[in-house]
C-alpha cells in the first residue's frame, strides 16, 4: 500500500518536474520574445511621438499597447492558436451605444435627458450646469458620459491629470527656472479658466460650433484640511458659475462608515457641491444579470467557450465592478490550462456544479483566483462573531482524521468564513475588536449561561494580555508585533465564538460602542483635574492618585470645601479647565456616537 503510494508520488513529482522544465523554457522564450516586441513597440511609440506632437495621453495608450504585447506574448507561449488580442478587452469592448451600457437604463436616461436639456437650450437658462455622478469604481461612470456624449453628438473635453513630478525631476528642473506648481494649483487654474472663458477648442476646425461637455474625472488628491478646503471652494465656484454642462465623477471608496479620512472628505465634498446646486446621480454597482449579459456577449464575440457557470461566478465575485469582471474574463480565457487546473483544484467540474446547486456554499465567500476581495464593515464582522451562527441538524459528520474532542469542548461547525479571514476583510485594529466584543458579547449569551460568560471573558483577558505586550514598543514596527496583534484578535474572536456554547436564536440587537473608551477618557481627565487640586491641598508632598481617590476624595466630599485649603486661583482655574475639556469631550463623543447609531446591526 505504502509502496504504491510512494510510486505514485514519485511519478507525479516527475511529471511536475518535466512540466516545470518545459514551462520554464517556455517562459524564457516568451520573455525574450515579449521584450523584443515591447522594445519595438516602444521605438514605434517614440517615433510616432516625435513625429506628431500629440498629447501625453497617447503615450499612455502606447504604453497600453506594450502591455498588450506582453500579454499576447504570453498567449503564444501557452500554445493557443487563438487570434492575437490587440487591446485589453476592457478597451476593445467599450460600450458604443446606449444599449450596450451595462448601467441601469433609468440612470442612463436621467443623465441623457439632463445633458440634452442643457445642450439644446440656449445658454443661461439653467442655473446649475453641473452633474455629480457618484458610484464605486468600475460601474461605468466615465463610459456612460462618453457614450451619451457621442449619442448627443457632443465633444467631451476633460481635465486630464497632469503627470506627477518626481523629486529628482523637480531638482533637475529647478535649475532651469521652472517653478513647481502643485497639482492642486494646476487644477485650480484650470477650473478658473473654464469658469471665466469657457473652453477654447483649438483643434476643432469644423463649420458649426459643436456642443461641449466638460468632464472632470479625476479630482486631485488633497492632503490635509487646507488643501481640501481649497479644492472644495474651487469646485463650489465652478458649480455656481460655469456655463458648460459639466460632469464631475466621484469614486466612492468603500463603505461610508469607514474611518478613513479621505472617504469622509469625499462625503463632505459631495454634500457641499449638492448644496451649492449640483445635480446628483448615484450609480449603483452593476447587477449580476446585466454583468452576465455583457460577459456572454464578449464571449460570443471572442469565440471562446466559457461555461455559463464560470461567467456566473465571475459576475458574482466581481462585486459590481464591470471593468474588473471583463479583465478577469480576459485573464480567464487566456490560458485554457488555467481553467483546467482550477477545476482540478476545486476537486472536479462535476462537484462545482453540485456546489452551485447548494446556494449557501457557492454564493458566499467562494472566490476564484481573480475574484475581488470583498470588504466587510466593522459592524458586519462583529455581527457575524456575536450572532455566532452555526450549522444545525444531525447529519454533521466530524472530521475523521482530526483528533477526538471531548463532548463539552466540541462545537458545531461555523456557518461563516474562518474568523481570521473575516477580521482581515474588516480591516480593524485588534484592540478595538476586543473592546467591541467585550462590550457587546453579554447581550448575546443565554441568561443561564454564566459559565459561558466566564469562558468568554477569560479569553478576552488573554487577548488583552497579548495586546499589552506591545505597550512601550511604539518606536519600531516589526513583524513580531503584527503577529502578536493578529494572534490577540484571533484569540478574542475565537474565544467569543467558542465560549458561547449554545447561541441564542438570532434576534435584533444594537451594537454599542465600547463604554470602556469613554471611561478611560473621563478617568484620565479626572486624574488631570485632581492633580491640579493636590498642590492646593497639600504643600509638602504629592500623593499618588490612588490615595487621593480612595482616601482624600470621599472625605473631602463629606467635609465640603471648607476644611480643605482650596486656594482661590486653583479653584478658578480648575473649572475653566473643566469647561474647555468637557466641551471638547462631549463633541467628540457625540460625533462618534452619532456615527454609531446609524449602524445598528440588524439580523442577517
Amino acid at each position: 500500500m505504502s509502496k504504491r503510494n510512494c510510486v505514485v508520488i514519485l511519478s507525479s513529482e516527475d511529471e511536475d518536474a518535466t512540466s516545470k522544465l518545459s514551462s520554464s523554457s517556455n517562459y524564457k522564450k516568451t520573455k525574450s520574445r515579449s521584450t523584443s516586441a515591447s522594445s519595438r513597440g516602444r521605438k514605434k511609440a517614440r517615433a510616432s511621438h516625435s513625429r506628431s506632437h500629440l498629447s501625453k495621453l497617447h503615450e499612455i495608450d502606447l504604453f497600453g499597447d506594450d502591455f498588450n504585447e506582453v500579454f499576447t506574448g504570453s498567449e503564444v507561449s501557452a500554445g493557443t492558436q487563438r487570434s492575437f488580442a490587440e487591446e485589453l478587452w476592457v478597451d476593445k469592448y467599450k460600450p458604443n451605444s446606449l444599449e450596450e451600457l451595462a448601467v441601469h437604463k433609468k440612470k442612463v436616461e436621467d443623465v441623457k435627458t439632463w445633458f440634452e436639456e442643457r445642450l439644446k437650450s440656449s445658454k443661461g437658462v439653467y442655473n446649475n450646469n453641473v452633474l455629480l455622478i457618484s458610484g464605486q469604481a468600475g460601474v461605468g461612470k466615465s463610459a456612460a458620459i462618453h457614450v451619451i456624449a457621442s449619442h448627443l453628438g457632443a465633444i467631451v473635453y476633460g481635465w486630464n491629470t497632469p503627470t506627477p513630478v518626481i523629486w529628482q525631476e523637480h531638482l533637475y528642473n529647478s535649475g532651469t527656472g521652472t517653478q513647481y506648481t502643485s497639482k492642486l494649483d494646476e487644477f485650480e487654474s484650470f477650473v478658473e479658466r473654464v469658469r471665466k472663458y469657457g473652453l477654447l477648442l483649438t483643434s476643432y476646425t469644423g463649420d458649426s460650433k459643436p456642443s461641449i461637455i466638460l468632464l472632470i474625472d479625476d479630482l486631485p488628491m488633497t492632503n490635509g484640511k487646507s488643501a481640501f478646503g481649497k479644492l472644495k471652494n474651487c469646485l463650489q465656484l465652478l458649480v455656481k458659475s460655469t456655463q458648460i454642462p459639466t460632469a464631475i465623477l466621484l469614486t466612492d471608496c468603500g463603505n461610508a462608515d469607514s474611518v478613513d479620512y479621505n472617504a469622509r472628505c469625499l462625503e463632505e465634498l459631495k454634500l457641499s457641491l449638492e448644496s451649492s446646486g449640483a445635480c446628483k446621480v448615484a450609480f449603483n454597482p452593476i447587477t449580476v444579470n446585466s454583468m452576465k449579459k455583457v460577459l456572454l456577449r464578449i464571449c460570443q464575440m471572442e469565440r471562446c467557450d466559457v461555461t455559463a457557470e464560470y461567467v456566473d461566478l465571475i459576475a458574482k465575485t466581481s462585486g459590481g465592478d464591470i471593468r474588473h469582471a471583463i479583465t478577469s474574463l480576459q485573464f480567464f480565457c487566456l490560458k485554457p490550462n488555467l481553467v483546467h487546473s482550477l477545476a482540478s483544484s476545486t476537486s472536479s467540474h462535476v462537484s462545482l456544479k453540485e456546489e452551485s446547486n447548494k446556494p449557501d456554499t457557492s454564493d458566499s465567500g467562494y472566490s476564484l483566483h481573480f475574484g475581488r476581495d470583498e470588504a466587510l464593515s466593522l459592524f458586519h464582522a462583529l455581527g457575524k462573531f456575536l450572532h455566532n451562527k452555526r450549522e444545525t441538524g444531525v447529519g454533521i459528520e466530524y472530521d475523521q482524521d482530526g483528533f477526538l474532542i471531548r463532548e463539552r469542548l466540541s462545537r458545531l461547525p461555523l456557518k461563516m468564513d474562518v474568523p481570521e479571514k473575516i477580521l482581515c476583510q474588516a480591516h480593524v485594529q485588534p484592540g478595538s475588536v476586543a473592546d467591541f466584543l467585550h462590550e457587546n458579547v453579554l447581550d448575546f449569551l443565554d441568561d443561564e449561561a454564566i459559565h459561558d460568560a466566564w469562558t468568554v471573558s477569560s479569553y478576552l483577558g488573554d487577548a488583552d494580555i497579548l495586546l499589552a505586550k506591545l505597550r512601550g514598543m511604539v518606536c519600531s514596527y516589526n513583524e513580531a508585533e503584527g503577529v502578536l496583534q493578529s494572534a490577540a484578535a484571533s484569540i478574542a474572536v475565537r474565544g467569543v465564538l467558542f465560549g458561547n456554547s449554545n447561541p441564542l436564536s438570532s434576534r435584533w440587537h444594537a451594537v454599542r460602542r465600547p463604554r470602556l473608551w469613554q471611561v478611560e477618557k473621563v478617568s484620565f481627565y479626572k486624574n488631570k483635574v485632581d492633580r491640579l487640586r493636590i498642590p492646593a491641598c497639600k504643600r509638602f508632598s504629592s500623593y499618588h492618585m490612588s490615595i487621593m481617590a480612595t482616601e482624600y476624595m470621599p472625605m473631602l466630599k463629606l467635609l465640603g470645601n471648607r476644611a480643605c485649603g482650596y486656594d482661590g486661583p486653583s479653584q478658578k482655574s480648575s473649572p475653566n479647565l473643566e469647561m474647555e475639556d468637557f466641551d471638547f469631550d462631549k463633541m467628540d463623543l457625540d460625533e462618534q456616537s452619532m456615527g454609531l447609531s446609524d449602524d445598528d446591526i440588524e439580523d442577517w
Partner: protein
Amino acid sequence: MLWVDKYRPKTLDHVTVHTDIAHNLKKLVKEQDCPHLLFYGPSGSGKKTLIMAVLRQMFGSGAEKVKVENRTWKVDAGSRSLDIELTTLSSTNHIEISPSDAGFQDRYVVQEVIKEMAKNRPIDTKGKKGFKVLVLNDVDKLSREAQHSLRRTMEKYSAYCRLILCCNSSSRVTEAIRSRCLNVRINAPSEEQILDVLELIGKKEGLQLPPGFAARIAEKSNRNLRRAILTFETCRVQQYPFTSKQTIPPMDWEEHISEIASDIMKEQSPKRLFQVRGKLYDLLINCIPPEMVLKRLLHELLRKLDAELKHEVCHWAAYYEHRMRLGQKAIFHIEAFVAKFMSIYKSFLIATFG
C-alpha cells in the same frame, strides 16, 4: 489645613509612631554617609512623613520650602523626541516625582531627571561637593524597563545624588534595586498606636472624646493612620460634641463595592454581570485603582461566603490580579473574576439546594 497635615511630625525627633526607625535614621544621616533608601509598607503607615523628616534632617528647614511645578522633559528616544510632562515638587536640595505617572515612558523620566540633577551639583558652605536627593514615589508601579534603567543610573550617578524610593510592596521592585538600597520597612501602625495619635490630636484641638469613640475609628481604619485622622476630622465636622454611638462615615467607594458584592450574590447571570460591569466602570471613572477594587470585592465576597468555597475564590482572585498586572485593560480581568465567581457560586448553589 487638614489635620493630617497639621499634625504631621516635622522632624525625626517628633515622630510618634515608628520611633525606633526614626532614631536609626537620624543616626544614619548624622554620620553623613547616607545610602540610597527604600521605604516600603502599606499606605497610611507614615512612609512619606519619615521621608520628609529625613530630608529635613539632612538639609535643615530649607527642605520644607518646596515649589510645585508641572515640568516637561524633552527626551530623545531613538528616532523621535518625546515630551513628557510630570508634576514635580522640589526644593533646592531635592526633587520629588512620581515617574509611574508617565505611563510606559517612565524609563526616560528617571534617566533624564537624574542626569539633569547630576549636571548642576550644589556646593555646600565648606566648598565640598554636596549631593541632591531624588525622591521617587510608587517605585513598584514602574515598568520593568524603567526599573532596569533606574538600576544603571543609580550606579553611574551615585556620587552626585541619593535616591529615596517609596513604594507599597517591595516584591514588585527588582532584586537589583533592592540590594542597592537600605530597605526600611514601615509597618502599619497598630490600633493602639492609632488610638494614641487620635487622642493626642483630640487633646491639642481641645476636644472631648467619649470613651470608645476613638477606638471605633481606629478599628474602622484598617490600621491606616491617614485614614483614621481623616475620618476623625470628618466626624468632628459632622457632629460635635461627639457621642459614643455616632456613626462613622464609611468611604463611598467601599459602600459601592459592597453593593456590587451583594448584587453578585443575589443573581448569577450574564445580564447581572453586565450590570456589575456598569458599576465597576463607575468606580474606575473615579480613579479607584483596579487592584483595590478587586481586593475589596474579594473581601466583601468572602464575608458572605460559605467556608468551603473561600479557598477556590481566593485562588481565582489571585489569578486574575496577576493577569490584570500583565494586561492593560483592568476591567476585562475584574469582570472575568466576577464571572468565574458567579459560575462557581451558581454550581455550588445547585449542588447544595438542587
